């Protein structure tokens, strides 16, 4: 019995938060490293997903449920984040298409018309 108990690894809040931190850092590095505008958009999506992992994990491991009702604030925040991410992706892609039509490239380094 004791031997079995040792092999048990309980997955707690920390595991999810570390994963969220890793995804966030990956997204940030994608934003910093990619010169393709759509690659940067993917980095933004990754950052939003990291935030969502944190929200849902906190929601699951929290005591916030009152009067026997489940705690749902984190999940609802995550739903709104997904909606906003979809909207943001649509507008960003429309802007990138316009950019591509004007500059025939999607390299963000070339978008320097407003540079003084």
């Amino acid at each position, binding site marked *: 019995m004791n031997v079995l108990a040792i092999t048990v690894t309980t997955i707690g809040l920390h595991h999810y938060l570390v*994963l969220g*931190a890793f995804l966030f850092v990956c997204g940030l590095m994608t934003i910093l490293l990619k010169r393709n505008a759509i690659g940067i958009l993917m980095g933004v999506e990754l950052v939003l997903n990291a935030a969502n992992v944190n929200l849902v994990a906190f929601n*699951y491991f929290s005591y916030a449920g009152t009067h026997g009702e489940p705690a749902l604030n984190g*999940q609802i925040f995550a739903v709104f984040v997904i*909606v906003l991410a979809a909207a943001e*992706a649509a507008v960003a892609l429309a802007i990138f298409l316009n950019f591509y039509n004007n500059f025939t490239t999607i390299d963000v380094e070339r978008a320097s018309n407003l540079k003084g």
Partner: protein
Amino acid sequence: MDAINSITNANAEAVLFYAFAGMAAISALLLVLSRNIVRTAVCLLFTLMGVAGLYFLLHAEFLAAVQLVVYAGGTLILIIFGVMLTSKSPFSKFEPKPGEVAIALVVGTVLFAALVLALHSFPFPAAEPNLEGKYPLLALGQALLGDYLIPFEIASVLLLVVMIGAAYLAKGRRHEAEDLKLGRTPASKTMRQWS
């Protein structure tokens, strides 16, 4: 018997967590390292699916389904269409400069180390799963149309505005073809002269 059952349950949960988390983390890392934009999109797909699996483990079934349908099914397809529309050859590469790579590596390592250290030093209360609600989906729907009604409606108006705005922004290119047909200088050429 109950103890053994709970132990196997915990083990299965741990195995599933490491499988999904590993899938998400490894494909996120590949997303950073990949220089090919199509491969990057595929990596993003696997990351999103891993995160959806984690939502299942966290008993957020509705969110997992939304993640798969909206993100993996909608947003990612949109992104792939964007990739196909904006590159003459979809395998074109843009290499970052070595200085940028160094800065990104330093920022990423320092930030990740700081976040993990902060997580391990912060005293979170002993976390116990919150399983009080029997039907979270019912409660989620009631909350969305009850306490969160105004954000819900604002989100729907926002989606309408975004749809109109994106359609308007994306259609602006037909002028160029007309300009070329009439022998005028296209707008893009004059723009490049100014720059």
